[in-house]
Protein backbone atom coordinates (compact mmCIF):
# COMPACT_ATOMS: atom_id res chain seq x y z
CA UNK A 1 0.00 0.00 0.00
CA UNK A 2 2.65 2.52 1.07
CA UNK A 3 6.23 2.87 -0.10
CA UNK A 4 9.17 2.34 2.25
CA UNK A 5 9.73 6.09 2.30
CA UNK A 6 6.16 6.75 3.42
CA UNK A 7 6.45 4.15 6.14
CA UNK A 8 9.79 5.59 7.24
CA UNK A 9 8.36 9.09 7.55
CA UNK A 10 5.25 7.75 9.22
CA UNK A 11 7.11 5.75 11.83
CA UNK A 12 9.92 8.26 12.36
CA UNK A 13 8.37 11.55 11.46
CA UNK A 14 10.93 14.38 11.33
CA UNK A 15 10.23 17.77 12.86
CA UNK A 16 7.16 16.89 14.89
CA UNK A 17 6.35 19.51 17.45
CA UNK A 18 5.55 23.08 18.21
CA UNK A 19 7.65 26.25 17.85
CA UNK A 20 6.51 28.39 20.74
CA UNK A 21 7.74 31.71 19.29
CA UNK A 22 7.02 30.85 15.65
CA UNK A 23 7.25 33.56 13.01
CA UNK A 24 4.42 32.02 11.11
CA UNK A 25 1.84 29.31 11.81
CA UNK A 26 -0.46 27.70 9.29
CA UNK A 27 -3.27 25.23 9.84
CA UNK A 28 -5.37 23.55 7.15
CA UNK A 29 -7.90 20.77 6.97
CA UNK A 30 -10.75 20.07 9.30
CA UNK A 31 -11.86 17.31 11.60
CA UNK A 32 -14.77 16.48 9.41
CA UNK A 33 -12.69 15.04 6.65
CA UNK A 34 -10.18 13.63 9.07
CA UNK A 35 -7.04 15.64 8.34
CA UNK A 36 -5.66 18.64 10.17
CA UNK A 37 -2.14 19.86 9.60
CA UNK A 38 -0.44 22.65 11.50
CA UNK A 39 2.98 24.03 10.49
CA UNK A 40 5.20 26.32 12.52
CA UNK A 41 7.97 28.36 10.89
CA UNK A 42 11.04 30.16 12.10
CA UNK A 43 12.29 32.53 9.37
CA UNK A 44 15.52 34.55 9.40
CA UNK A 45 16.61 36.65 6.41
CA UNK A 46 14.08 34.92 4.16
CA UNK A 47 15.51 31.55 5.10
CA UNK A 48 13.44 28.94 6.86
CA UNK A 49 15.67 28.11 9.78
CA UNK A 50 13.21 25.91 11.61
CA UNK A 51 9.96 24.16 10.84
CA UNK A 52 7.77 21.88 12.95
CA UNK A 53 4.42 20.23 12.40
CA UNK A 54 1.51 18.60 14.17
CA UNK A 55 -0.85 16.46 12.18
CA UNK A 56 -4.12 14.74 12.87
CA UNK A 57 -4.62 12.36 9.99
CA UNK A 58 -3.75 9.14 8.30
CA UNK A 59 -0.36 7.64 7.57
CA UNK A 60 0.16 9.60 4.40
CA UNK A 61 -0.88 12.85 6.05
CA UNK A 62 1.79 12.33 8.68
CA UNK A 63 4.38 11.22 6.15
CA UNK A 64 3.54 14.14 3.85
CA UNK A 65 3.95 16.59 6.72
CA UNK A 66 7.26 15.06 7.66
CA UNK A 67 8.76 15.00 4.16
CA UNK A 68 7.54 18.55 3.53
CA UNK A 69 9.30 19.87 6.61
CA UNK A 70 12.49 18.07 5.66
CA UNK A 71 12.44 19.49 2.15
CA UNK A 72 11.53 22.97 3.26
CA UNK A 73 13.93 23.37 6.16
CA UNK A 74 17.00 25.43 5.26
CA UNK A 75 15.56 26.66 1.99
CA UNK A 76 14.80 30.28 1.28
CA UNK A 77 11.13 31.11 1.39
CA UNK A 78 11.10 31.55 -2.38
CA UNK A 79 12.75 28.19 -2.97
CA UNK A 80 10.36 26.54 -0.55
CA UNK A 81 7.32 28.16 -2.14
CA UNK A 82 8.42 26.70 -5.45
CA UNK A 83 7.97 23.20 -4.06
CA UNK A 84 4.62 21.62 -4.84
CA UNK A 85 2.83 18.61 -3.51
CA UNK A 86 4.23 16.67 -6.47
CA UNK A 87 7.72 17.16 -5.09
CA UNK A 88 6.64 15.73 -1.75
CA UNK A 89 4.94 12.79 -3.42
CA UNK A 90 8.00 12.20 -5.54
CA UNK A 91 10.28 12.23 -2.51
CA UNK A 92 7.97 9.73 -0.83
CA UNK A 93 8.25 7.42 -3.82
CA UNK A 94 4.57 7.91 -4.59
CA UNK A 95 1.25 7.91 -2.75
CA UNK A 96 -1.95 5.99 -3.50
CA UNK A 97 -4.16 8.20 -5.64
CA UNK A 98 -6.82 8.48 -2.95
CA UNK A 99 -4.13 9.89 -0.67
CA UNK A 100 -2.74 12.56 -2.93
CA UNK A 101 -4.80 15.18 -1.13
CA UNK A 102 -2.57 14.67 1.94
CA UNK A 103 0.40 16.01 0.05
CA UNK A 104 -1.67 18.97 -1.12
CA UNK A 105 -2.54 19.69 2.49
CA UNK A 106 1.16 19.82 3.39
CA UNK A 107 1.85 22.27 0.57
CA UNK A 108 -1.02 24.44 1.69
CA UNK A 109 -0.27 24.32 5.40
CA UNK A 110 3.17 25.64 4.58
CA UNK A 111 1.77 28.39 2.39
CA UNK A 112 -0.70 29.42 5.06
CA UNK A 113 2.18 29.64 7.52
CA UNK A 114 4.17 31.83 5.13
CA UNK A 115 1.06 33.92 4.58
CA UNK A 116 0.78 34.32 8.35
CA UNK A 117 4.44 35.40 8.44
CA UNK A 118 3.79 37.94 5.68
CA UNK A 119 0.83 39.35 7.58
CA UNK A 120 2.95 39.76 10.70
CA UNK A 121 6.13 40.95 9.01
CA UNK A 122 4.69 42.99 6.15
CA UNK A 123 6.81 40.97 3.71
CA UNK A 124 5.58 39.53 0.45
CA UNK A 125 6.79 36.73 -1.82
CA UNK A 126 6.15 36.28 -5.49
CA UNK A 127 5.40 32.61 -4.96
CA UNK A 128 2.51 33.51 -2.73
CA UNK A 129 0.84 35.89 -5.12
CA UNK A 130 -2.88 35.33 -5.37
CA UNK A 131 -2.81 32.80 -2.56
CA UNK A 132 -5.87 32.99 -0.35
CA UNK A 133 -5.74 30.96 2.85
CA UNK A 134 -9.53 30.96 2.90
CA UNK A 135 -9.48 28.56 -0.03
CA UNK A 136 -6.82 26.33 1.42
CA UNK A 137 -9.27 24.35 3.49
CA UNK A 138 -10.95 23.13 0.37
CA UNK A 139 -11.54 19.53 -0.09
CA UNK A 140 -8.74 17.92 -2.02
CA UNK A 141 -9.95 14.40 -1.64
CA UNK A 142 -9.89 12.34 -4.75
CA UNK A 143 -12.59 9.74 -4.78
CA UNK A 144 -10.26 7.51 -6.70
CA UNK A 145 -12.99 5.46 -8.26
CA UNK A 146 -10.70 4.03 -10.82
CA UNK A 147 -7.35 3.56 -9.19
CA UNK A 148 -7.92 2.99 -5.57
CA UNK A 149 -5.13 0.52 -4.98
Amino acid at each position, binding site marked *: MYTDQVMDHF*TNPRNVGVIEDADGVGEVGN*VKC*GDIMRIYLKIEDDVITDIKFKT*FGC*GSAIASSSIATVMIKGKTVDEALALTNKDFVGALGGLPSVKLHCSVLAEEAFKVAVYDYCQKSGKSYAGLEGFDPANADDDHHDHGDEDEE
Partner: protein
Amino acid sequence: MKRVYLDYSATTPTKKEVLDAMLPYFSEVFGNPSSIHGFGREAKKVVNESRATIAGFMNADEKELYFTAGGTESDNWAVKGAAKALKNKGNHIITSKIEHHGILHTCESLEKEGFEVTYLDVDGDGLISLEALEAAIKPETVLISIMFVNNEIGTLQPIKEIGAIAKAHGVLFHTDAVQAFGNFKIDVKDMNIDLMSISSHKIYGPKGIGALYIRKGVRLVNFVDGGAQERKKRAGTENVPSIVGFAKAAEIAYRDFDAHVEKLVALRERLRKGVMETIDYCKYNGHPDQRHPGNAHFAFEFIEGEALLLSLDLVGIAGSSGSACTSGSLDPSHVLMAIGLKHEIAHGSLRLSVGDFTTEEDIDYTIKELKTIVERLRMMSPLYDKVTGGK
Protein backbone atom coordinates in the same frame (compact mmCIF):
# COMPACT_ATOMS: atom_id res chain seq x y z
CA MET B 1 7.53 -10.55 15.09
CA LYS B 2 4.51 -11.46 17.16
CA ARG B 3 1.40 -11.41 15.01
CA VAL B 4 -1.97 -10.88 16.60
CA TYR B 5 -5.04 -11.17 14.41
CA LEU B 6 -7.96 -9.23 15.85
CA ASP B 7 -10.01 -8.85 12.70
CA TYR B 8 -12.19 -11.95 12.84
CA SER B 9 -15.19 -9.87 11.78
CA ALA B 10 -13.45 -9.13 8.48
CA THR B 11 -12.65 -12.75 7.79
CA THR B 12 -11.52 -15.88 9.59
CA PRO B 13 -8.89 -18.48 8.80
CA THR B 14 -10.34 -21.70 7.46
CA LYS B 15 -10.16 -24.28 10.23
CA LYS B 16 -8.09 -27.39 9.61
CA GLU B 17 -11.12 -29.65 10.08
CA VAL B 18 -12.93 -27.62 7.46
CA LEU B 19 -10.11 -27.72 4.93
CA ASP B 20 -9.69 -31.45 5.50
CA ALA B 21 -13.38 -31.96 4.76
CA MET B 22 -13.04 -29.99 1.53
CA LEU B 23 -9.93 -31.66 0.14
CA PRO B 24 -11.51 -34.77 -1.44
CA TYR B 25 -13.83 -32.60 -3.50
CA PHE B 26 -11.19 -30.87 -5.60
CA SER B 27 -9.58 -33.70 -7.49
CA GLU B 28 -11.31 -36.90 -6.47
CA VAL B 29 -15.05 -36.31 -6.12
CA PHE B 30 -14.87 -33.52 -8.64
CA GLY B 31 -17.96 -34.09 -10.78
CA ASN B 32 -20.44 -31.43 -11.79
CA PRO B 33 -23.53 -31.93 -9.62
CA SER B 34 -25.74 -31.35 -12.65
CA SER B 35 -24.29 -34.35 -14.45
CA ILE B 36 -26.32 -37.53 -14.23
CA HIS B 37 -23.34 -39.89 -14.17
CA GLY B 38 -21.71 -41.22 -11.04
CA PHE B 39 -19.16 -38.41 -10.78
CA GLY B 40 -22.01 -35.93 -10.85
CA ARG B 41 -24.29 -37.83 -8.50
CA GLU B 42 -21.59 -38.11 -5.84
CA ALA B 43 -21.13 -34.35 -6.01
CA LYS B 44 -24.85 -33.66 -5.96
CA LYS B 45 -25.27 -35.89 -2.94
CA VAL B 46 -22.69 -34.04 -0.88
CA VAL B 47 -24.09 -30.68 -1.95
CA ASN B 48 -27.51 -31.66 -0.69
CA GLU B 49 -26.16 -33.17 2.51
CA SER B 50 -24.32 -29.92 3.14
CA ARG B 51 -27.47 -27.98 2.45
CA ALA B 52 -29.39 -30.06 4.97
CA THR B 53 -26.67 -29.60 7.58
CA ILE B 54 -26.68 -25.83 7.30
CA ALA B 55 -30.46 -25.56 7.05
CA GLY B 56 -30.74 -27.56 10.24
CA PHE B 57 -28.84 -24.93 12.22
CA MET B 58 -31.47 -22.32 11.47
CA ASN B 59 -34.46 -24.63 11.75
CA ALA B 60 -35.10 -24.44 8.03
CA ASP B 61 -35.98 -27.14 5.57
CA GLU B 62 -33.12 -28.09 3.28
CA LYS B 63 -35.22 -27.05 0.31
CA GLU B 64 -35.30 -23.52 1.66
CA LEU B 65 -31.54 -22.98 1.44
CA TYR B 66 -29.78 -21.85 -1.75
CA PHE B 67 -26.04 -21.54 -2.14
CA THR B 68 -24.54 -18.31 -3.44
CA ALA B 69 -21.02 -16.90 -3.80
CA GLY B 70 -21.20 -15.12 -0.44
CA GLY B 71 -23.05 -12.76 1.82
CA THR B 72 -23.00 -9.92 -0.66
CA GLU B 73 -24.62 -11.94 -3.40
CA SER B 74 -27.22 -13.22 -0.94
CA ASP B 75 -28.01 -9.63 0.06
CA ASN B 76 -28.30 -8.55 -3.57
CA TRP B 77 -30.52 -11.47 -4.45
CA ALA B 78 -32.81 -11.10 -1.45
CA VAL B 79 -33.41 -7.40 -1.86
CA LYS B 80 -33.44 -7.11 -5.65
CA GLY B 81 -35.27 -10.40 -6.06
CA ALA B 82 -38.01 -9.50 -3.60
CA ALA B 83 -38.38 -5.94 -4.89
CA LYS B 84 -38.74 -7.11 -8.46
CA ALA B 85 -41.03 -10.01 -7.62
CA LEU B 86 -43.36 -7.73 -5.70
CA LYS B 87 -43.18 -4.60 -7.76
CA ASN B 88 -46.81 -4.90 -8.70
CA LYS B 89 -47.70 -4.91 -5.03
CA GLY B 90 -45.62 -1.93 -4.01
CA ASN B 91 -42.30 -0.19 -4.39
CA HIS B 92 -41.32 0.61 -0.83
CA ILE B 93 -38.48 -0.98 1.13
CA ILE B 94 -37.52 -0.37 4.73
CA THR B 95 -33.98 -0.88 5.92
CA SER B 96 -31.66 0.79 8.42
CA LYS B 97 -28.85 3.29 8.21
CA ILE B 98 -26.33 0.82 9.56
CA GLU B 99 -26.67 -2.00 7.07
CA HIS B 100 -23.68 -3.47 5.31
CA HIS B 101 -22.91 -1.98 1.89
CA GLY B 102 -24.24 -5.19 0.36
CA ILE B 103 -27.67 -3.96 1.41
CA LEU B 104 -27.19 -0.20 1.24
CA HIS B 105 -25.73 -0.06 -2.25
CA THR B 106 -28.29 -2.56 -3.43
CA CYS B 107 -31.04 -0.31 -2.10
CA GLU B 108 -29.45 2.67 -3.80
CA SER B 109 -29.42 0.88 -7.11
CA LEU B 110 -33.11 0.05 -6.63
CA GLU B 111 -33.82 3.69 -5.87
CA LYS B 112 -32.41 4.50 -9.30
CA GLU B 113 -34.95 2.10 -10.75
CA GLY B 114 -37.84 3.83 -9.04
CA PHE B 115 -38.10 2.07 -5.70
CA GLU B 116 -38.48 4.10 -2.54
CA VAL B 117 -36.34 3.22 0.45
CA THR B 118 -36.72 4.27 4.08
CA TYR B 119 -33.46 4.12 6.02
CA LEU B 120 -34.33 3.80 9.69
CA ASP B 121 -32.28 5.68 12.24
CA VAL B 122 -30.60 3.88 15.10
CA ASP B 123 -29.96 5.05 18.63
CA GLY B 124 -26.57 5.63 20.22
CA ASP B 125 -26.15 1.91 20.84
CA GLY B 126 -27.03 1.08 17.27
CA LEU B 127 -30.55 -0.23 17.83
CA ILE B 128 -33.44 0.55 15.54
CA SER B 129 -36.70 1.62 17.09
CA LEU B 130 -39.52 -0.89 16.72
CA GLU B 131 -42.04 1.93 16.85
CA ALA B 132 -40.28 3.77 14.05
CA LEU B 133 -40.19 0.57 12.04
CA GLU B 134 -43.88 -0.02 12.45
CA ALA B 135 -44.63 3.61 11.67
CA ALA B 136 -42.61 3.40 8.45
CA ILE B 137 -44.72 0.58 7.05
CA LYS B 138 -47.04 1.74 4.28
CA PRO B 139 -49.41 -0.11 2.00
CA GLU B 140 -46.64 -0.04 -0.63
CA THR B 141 -44.07 -1.63 1.66
CA VAL B 142 -42.92 -4.97 0.25
CA LEU B 143 -39.75 -5.67 2.17
CA ILE B 144 -38.08 -4.99 5.50
CA SER B 145 -34.34 -5.70 5.56
CA ILE B 146 -32.66 -5.29 8.93
CA MET B 147 -29.33 -6.85 9.74
CA PHE B 148 -29.11 -9.37 12.56
CA VAL B 149 -25.79 -8.16 13.96
CA ASN B 150 -23.87 -5.14 12.83
CA ASN B 151 -20.42 -5.82 11.44
CA GLU B 152 -18.77 -2.70 12.81
CA ILE B 153 -20.13 -2.05 16.28
CA GLY B 154 -21.49 -5.54 16.91
CA THR B 155 -24.99 -4.50 17.94
CA LEU B 156 -27.66 -7.20 17.88
CA GLN B 157 -31.12 -6.14 16.70
CA PRO B 158 -34.37 -7.44 18.21
CA ILE B 159 -34.88 -9.80 15.29
CA LYS B 160 -37.81 -11.75 16.66
CA GLU B 161 -39.74 -8.56 17.39
CA ILE B 162 -38.96 -7.22 13.91
CA GLY B 163 -40.14 -10.50 12.43
CA ALA B 164 -43.39 -10.25 14.37
CA ILE B 165 -44.05 -6.74 13.10
CA ALA B 166 -43.28 -7.74 9.52
CA LYS B 167 -45.59 -10.71 9.82
CA ALA B 168 -48.39 -8.69 11.35
CA HIS B 169 -48.24 -6.31 8.40
CA GLY B 170 -47.81 -9.00 5.78
CA VAL B 171 -44.44 -7.64 4.70
CA LEU B 172 -41.45 -9.84 3.81
CA PHE B 173 -38.60 -9.77 6.30
CA HIS B 174 -35.00 -10.23 5.22
CA THR B 175 -32.09 -10.21 7.62
CA ASP B 176 -28.39 -10.04 6.81
CA ALA B 177 -27.17 -12.61 9.31
CA VAL B 178 -23.62 -12.77 7.96
CA GLN B 179 -22.16 -11.76 11.33
CA ALA B 180 -24.77 -13.62 13.34
CA PHE B 181 -24.77 -17.13 11.93
CA GLY B 182 -22.50 -19.26 14.08
CA ASN B 183 -22.44 -16.68 16.87
CA PHE B 184 -26.11 -16.69 17.80
CA LYS B 185 -28.79 -19.34 17.89
CA ILE B 186 -31.09 -18.69 14.96
CA ASP B 187 -34.56 -20.09 14.39
CA VAL B 188 -36.08 -18.71 11.21
CA LYS B 189 -39.51 -20.02 12.06
CA ASP B 190 -39.65 -18.70 15.59
CA MET B 191 -38.18 -15.39 14.47
CA ASN B 192 -40.45 -15.07 11.44
CA ILE B 193 -37.57 -14.60 9.06
CA ASP B 194 -38.53 -14.92 5.39
CA LEU B 195 -35.11 -14.37 3.85
CA MET B 196 -31.69 -14.61 5.46
CA SER B 197 -28.16 -14.07 4.13
CA ILE B 198 -25.21 -16.01 5.54
CA SER B 199 -21.57 -16.33 4.55
CA SER B 200 -18.99 -19.02 5.18
CA HIS B 201 -15.77 -17.05 5.59
CA LYS B 202 -16.98 -15.38 8.77
CA ILE B 203 -17.29 -18.72 10.55
CA TYR B 204 -13.94 -20.34 9.75
CA GLY B 205 -15.15 -21.68 6.41
CA PRO B 206 -13.77 -20.84 2.96
CA LYS B 207 -14.31 -17.53 1.21
CA GLY B 208 -16.55 -17.18 -1.83
CA ILE B 209 -19.47 -19.23 -0.59
CA GLY B 210 -22.65 -18.17 1.14
CA ALA B 211 -26.31 -18.97 1.14
CA LEU B 212 -29.72 -17.40 1.07
CA TYR B 213 -32.53 -18.87 3.11
CA ILE B 214 -35.81 -18.40 1.26
CA ARG B 215 -38.87 -19.41 3.23
CA LYS B 216 -41.02 -21.91 1.37
CA GLY B 217 -43.64 -20.04 -0.59
CA VAL B 218 -41.64 -16.82 -0.94
CA ARG B 219 -41.03 -15.97 -4.59
CA LEU B 220 -37.97 -14.02 -5.66
CA VAL B 221 -36.93 -13.00 -9.14
CA ASN B 222 -33.73 -14.87 -9.92
CA PHE B 223 -30.56 -12.86 -9.60
CA VAL B 224 -28.05 -14.99 -11.49
CA ASP B 225 -29.75 -16.33 -14.64
CA GLY B 226 -28.51 -19.41 -16.45
CA GLY B 227 -28.46 -23.14 -15.85
CA ALA B 228 -30.91 -25.12 -13.75
CA GLN B 229 -28.75 -25.35 -10.62
CA GLU B 230 -30.13 -24.79 -7.11
CA ARG B 231 -33.57 -25.89 -8.22
CA LYS B 232 -33.51 -23.37 -11.05
CA LYS B 233 -33.11 -20.46 -8.69
CA ARG B 234 -29.38 -19.72 -8.79
CA ALA B 235 -27.41 -20.56 -11.89
CA GLY B 236 -23.73 -21.48 -12.05
CA THR B 237 -21.85 -24.70 -11.44
CA GLU B 238 -22.02 -25.45 -7.74
CA ASN B 239 -18.84 -24.74 -5.79
CA VAL B 240 -18.75 -28.22 -4.31
CA PRO B 241 -15.64 -28.13 -2.11
CA SER B 242 -16.60 -24.76 -0.67
CA ILE B 243 -20.14 -25.91 0.00
CA VAL B 244 -18.73 -28.88 1.89
CA GLY B 245 -16.43 -26.56 3.81
CA PHE B 246 -19.25 -24.19 4.66
CA ALA B 247 -21.31 -27.05 6.07
CA LYS B 248 -18.38 -28.33 8.10
CA ALA B 249 -17.75 -24.85 9.47
CA ALA B 250 -21.40 -24.49 10.46
CA GLU B 251 -21.31 -27.90 12.08
CA ILE B 252 -18.27 -26.97 14.15
CA ALA B 253 -19.76 -23.61 15.05
CA TYR B 254 -22.90 -25.10 16.49
CA ARG B 255 -21.19 -28.17 17.94
CA ASP B 256 -18.83 -25.98 19.95
CA PHE B 257 -21.27 -23.12 20.29
CA ASP B 258 -21.30 -22.56 24.05
CA ALA B 259 -17.54 -22.82 24.46
CA HIS B 260 -17.02 -20.52 21.49
CA VAL B 261 -19.30 -17.79 22.78
CA GLU B 262 -18.00 -18.05 26.32
CA LYS B 263 -14.39 -17.84 25.19
CA LEU B 264 -14.98 -14.88 22.89
CA VAL B 265 -16.94 -12.92 25.45
CA ALA B 266 -14.23 -13.46 28.08
CA LEU B 267 -11.47 -12.30 25.74
CA ARG B 268 -13.48 -9.39 24.45
CA GLU B 269 -14.27 -8.24 27.98
CA ARG B 270 -10.63 -8.52 28.99
CA LEU B 271 -9.76 -6.35 26.00
CA ARG B 272 -12.52 -3.84 26.65
CA LYS B 273 -11.60 -3.43 30.29
CA GLY B 274 -7.90 -3.24 29.59
CA VAL B 275 -8.29 -0.55 26.98
CA MET B 276 -10.85 1.52 28.84
CA GLU B 277 -8.77 1.43 32.01
CA THR B 278 -5.44 2.36 30.45
CA ILE B 279 -6.39 4.86 27.75
CA ASP B 280 -8.32 8.04 28.42
CA TYR B 281 -10.44 10.02 25.95
CA CYS B 282 -11.75 6.74 24.63
CA LYS B 283 -15.30 5.68 23.92
CA TYR B 284 -16.63 2.12 23.69
CA ASN B 285 -19.25 1.84 20.95
CA GLY B 286 -22.13 -0.48 20.26
CA HIS B 287 -24.64 -1.93 22.65
CA PRO B 288 -23.09 -2.77 26.05
CA ASP B 289 -24.34 -6.36 26.07
CA GLN B 290 -26.65 -7.03 23.10
CA ARG B 291 -23.70 -7.52 20.80
CA HIS B 292 -21.54 -9.95 18.87
CA PRO B 293 -19.49 -12.03 21.34
CA GLY B 294 -16.18 -11.20 19.69
CA ASN B 295 -16.69 -7.55 18.82
CA ALA B 296 -15.03 -4.66 20.64
CA HIS B 297 -15.30 -1.19 19.15
CA PHE B 298 -13.45 1.86 20.40
CA ALA B 299 -13.13 5.46 19.32
CA PHE B 300 -10.02 7.32 20.42
CA GLU B 301 -10.21 11.07 20.41
CA PHE B 302 -7.64 13.28 18.65
CA ILE B 303 -6.22 10.64 16.38
CA GLU B 304 -7.09 9.12 13.09
CA GLY B 305 -7.95 5.48 12.54
CA GLU B 306 -5.75 4.65 9.61
CA ALA B 307 -2.66 5.93 11.36
CA LEU B 308 -3.70 3.81 14.32
CA LEU B 309 -4.13 0.71 12.17
CA LEU B 310 -0.80 1.24 10.46
CA SER B 311 0.93 1.62 13.78
CA LEU B 312 -0.73 -1.48 15.16
CA ASP B 313 0.23 -3.34 12.02
CA LEU B 314 3.86 -2.37 12.58
CA VAL B 315 3.77 -4.26 15.87
CA GLY B 316 1.90 -7.17 14.27
CA ILE B 317 -1.61 -6.39 15.41
CA ALA B 318 -4.41 -6.57 12.84
CA GLY B 319 -7.54 -4.49 13.44
CA SER B 320 -10.00 -2.49 11.44
CA SER B 321 -11.27 1.07 11.39
CA GLY B 322 -14.32 2.95 10.18
CA SER B 323 -12.06 5.88 9.39
CA ALA B 324 -12.65 7.50 6.02
CA CYS B 325 -8.97 7.20 5.23
CA THR B 326 -9.02 3.43 5.20
CA SER B 327 -11.61 3.27 2.49
CA GLY B 328 -10.56 6.28 0.51
CA SER B 329 -13.95 7.86 0.96
CA LEU B 330 -14.64 11.28 2.41
CA ASP B 331 -16.72 10.37 5.39
CA PRO B 332 -16.11 8.05 8.24
CA SER B 333 -18.21 4.92 8.32
CA HIS B 334 -21.96 5.42 7.88
CA VAL B 335 -22.48 3.23 10.93
CA LEU B 336 -20.52 5.53 13.22
CA MET B 337 -22.34 8.55 11.81
CA ALA B 338 -25.66 6.81 12.38
CA ILE B 339 -24.96 6.20 16.07
CA GLY B 340 -24.27 9.90 16.37
CA LEU B 341 -20.48 9.97 16.73
CA LYS B 342 -18.95 13.29 15.80
CA HIS B 343 -16.62 13.17 12.82
CA GLU B 344 -13.44 13.73 14.81
CA ILE B 345 -14.27 10.84 17.09
CA ALA B 346 -15.51 8.59 14.35
CA HIS B 347 -12.24 9.06 12.49
CA GLY B 348 -10.40 7.61 15.47
CA SER B 349 -12.38 4.40 15.52
CA LEU B 350 -10.93 0.95 15.96
CA ARG B 351 -12.69 -2.38 15.71
CA LEU B 352 -10.89 -5.27 17.36
CA SER B 353 -12.67 -8.57 16.93
CA VAL B 354 -11.51 -11.67 18.74
CA GLY B 355 -11.96 -15.23 17.56
CA ASP B 356 -11.37 -18.87 18.26
CA PHE B 357 -7.60 -18.61 17.92
CA THR B 358 -7.17 -15.51 20.07
CA THR B 359 -5.26 -15.92 23.36
CA GLU B 360 -5.12 -13.91 26.57
CA GLU B 361 -1.52 -13.02 25.72
CA ASP B 362 -2.73 -11.57 22.43
CA ILE B 363 -5.11 -9.37 24.35
CA ASP B 364 -2.58 -8.23 26.90
CA TYR B 365 -0.01 -7.50 24.23
CA THR B 366 -2.59 -5.49 22.31
CA ILE B 367 -3.62 -3.41 25.31
CA LYS B 368 0.01 -2.55 26.01
CA GLU B 369 0.91 -1.67 22.43
CA LEU B 370 -2.29 0.21 21.84
CA LYS B 371 -1.60 2.50 24.79
CA THR B 372 1.86 3.38 23.45
CA ILE B 373 0.58 3.98 19.94
CA VAL B 374 -2.35 6.13 20.97
CA GLU B 375 -0.02 8.25 23.08
CA ARG B 376 2.48 8.61 20.28
CA LEU B 377 -0.13 9.63 17.72
CA ARG B 378 -1.71 12.04 20.16
CA MET B 379 1.66 13.69 20.66
CA MET B 380 1.64 14.45 16.94
CA SER B 381 -1.93 15.68 16.91
CA PRO B 382 -2.81 19.38 16.89
CA LEU B 383 -6.17 18.45 18.39
CA TYR B 384 -4.60 16.89 21.46
CA ASP B 385 -2.53 20.05 21.88
CA LYS B 386 -5.69 21.95 22.42
CA VAL B 387 -6.70 19.63 25.26
CA THR B 388 -3.36 19.45 26.98
CA GLY B 389 -2.50 23.04 26.19
CA GLY B 390 0.41 21.82 24.08
CA LYS B 391 2.16 20.14 27.01
